[in-house]
């Protein structure tokens, strides 16, 4: 409990840093005034209209990706699983790129996220249809395979579409696919928040089932889990959570893989702790990464996915090699006798 409190404080601090630091330098006092509406119009616009929604959205997206990453890793019994492994981001990208290439995005800012979400939903439906085709319930090995091949197919579709795109269209499509939070506004914040709260409650309520599923489906059954129901709920909840995040921010990589494993390395794999802890660490990590993305090469912006990998991977490797010696937290998969 104390660890979660600590992580919540870290997340809150990250949010404050993300609001204070930016390409336009504002003193912390002015930022506070602007947030309360007591500063000049420019400062108020920068803080209330740009930085605050962007920081909050980064926190929500980071939380959503980390939470779904941790859930997928348990569901698929695969430490390498990440939020996009089942083709959700590929489907979202097909939707987004289609809307860009066909020029629908001119109709309004809401078109692109909506097209992305539609694409993600279609991807979930397709993958599920393939995985459940065997008839004997949801086989997670087939699910993994179906997700990966569907993702490959979506990639091909995207490159096919882009072959015929104008240079400018091509550029905006590629930027969307790299992921970023520059499109942040309060509408996006509301969309992700509305998805995140029930999804987080649902997944955390299934934390024990995830502990058991990570050991084995039969074990989970014999310890009282309604295995098929749990798998469906986890899959659909985590997938739609990813769909919501991807729709507003593109496919930001590494967060959903690294954050849960960092928690595992530090404090173990009990999902009752791992899920809320991943959520909070994700909510701290992405705003900080995005702050770097905005400021490191100002006035241009580095794609935040580049930062999450450039910063996140070394930090993760450090945790991995400096993990305490001895058997307490031996990593890796071990087969039973």
């Amino acid at each position, binding site marked *: 409990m104390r660890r979660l409190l600590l992580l919540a404080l870290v997340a809150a601090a990250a949010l404050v840093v993300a609001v204070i630091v930016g390409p336009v330098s504002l003193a912390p006092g002015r930022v506070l005034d602007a947030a309360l509406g007591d500063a000049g119009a420019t400062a108020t616009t920068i803080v209330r209209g740009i930085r605050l929604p962007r920081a909050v959205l980064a926190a929500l997206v980071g939380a959503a990706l980390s939470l779904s990453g941790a859930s997928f890793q348990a569901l698929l019994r695969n430490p390498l699983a990440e939020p996009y492994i089942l083709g959700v981001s590929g489907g979202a990208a097909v939707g987004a790129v289609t809307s860009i290439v066909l020029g629908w995005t001119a109709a309004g800012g809401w078109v692109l996220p909506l097209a992305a979400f539609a694409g993600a939903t279609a991807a979930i439906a397709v993958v599920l249809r393939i995985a459940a085709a065997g008839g004997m319930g949801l086989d997670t090995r087939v699910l993994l395979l179906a997700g990966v091949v569907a993702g490959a197919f979506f990639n091909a579709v995207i490159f096919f579409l882009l072959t015929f795109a104008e240079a400018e269209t091509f550029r905006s499509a590629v930027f969307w696919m790299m992921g970023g939070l520059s499109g942040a506004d309060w509408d996006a914040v509301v969309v992700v928040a509305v998805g995140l709260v029930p999804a987080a409650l649902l997944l955390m309520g299934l934390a024990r089932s995830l502990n058991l599923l990570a050991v084995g489906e039969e074990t989970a*059954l014999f310890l009282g889990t309604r295995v098929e129901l749990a798998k469906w709920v986890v899959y659909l909840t985590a997938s739609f959570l990813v769909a919501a995040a991807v729709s507003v921010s593109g496919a930001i990589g590494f967060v959903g893989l690294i954050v849960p494993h960092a928690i595992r390395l530090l404090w173990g794999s009990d999902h009752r702790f791992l899920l809320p802890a991943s959520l909070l660490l994700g909510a701290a990590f992405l705003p900080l990464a995005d702050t770097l993305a905005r400021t490191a090469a100002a006035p241009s912006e580095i794609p935040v996915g580049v930062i999450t990998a450039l910063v996140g991977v070394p930090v993760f490797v450090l945790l991995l090699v400096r993990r305490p010696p001895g058997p307490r937290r031996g990593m890796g998969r071990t087969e039973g006798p």
Partner: protein
Amino acid sequence: MTSPLLAASGLRFRYPGAARPAVDEVDLSVPEGALVGVIGPNGSGKSTLVRLLLGALEPDRGEIRLLGRRLSSWRRRELARRVGVVPQNESVTFPVSVREFVAMGRYPHLGPWRTEGPEDRDAVERALARCDVEDLAGRAFATLSGGERQLARVARALAQEPDLLALDEPTVSLDVRHEMEIYELLRELVAGGTTVLLVTHNLNAAARYADRLLLLHGGRARAEGTPAEVLTRETVEEVYGWPVRVVPHPGPGPDEGAPQVVALAGGDGGHAPSEGERDR
């Protein structure tokens, strides 16, 4: 005589696409406080039968009753408070300590948002002590040896505080000492009132520790009764297709005189050697 803890009659189950049923017209009765062994050659339907009895598979035909109630009417969580299982195949994907692993046995006793209370922690400690793995409680499950893992699995099932403990091949690939530790533990548990259902390839261990045996052959019950009734030379040779002798366990020990199956060398697998051949 009281009604059995677990009773099955006329069970039949065929896997989709299979030519013949994996389990066919099998009856089984597990009396309270007994150790019942299910034995049989590879592919004889042992594991399928146990999956049916534990509600992991639905029988095509037949009826299973646990504590007098139809198995299909039990909710999974209710069932997991009564029946503890040590399954055959498990792998741990993420690092988990032995204590955390054993504490999973308490999940069926908790609601989704309720955390462990003192009685749950006591049950976990008792289970760890019972299986003699308290010293390993802080270790990562992945770092245990095969024998230690199996003891931890039994401890997890005991943490469920079940009326019935079911084990599927609990001693495969264990050395003699760990194997005997598991069987002695089962004997103690039965003496303490737990009912045990054991599936095993190990005919001799089954003969020494089980009160009753069910011998499956091709999905059907070939013999049922006490070890001495089931493990006769004639039956074993017919079912396994290999020449054997059945001799009494030399002792000393509580199971002195239990029938022990000794497979003969030099057989061709199809026929038992004649008396003359044996005497040479």
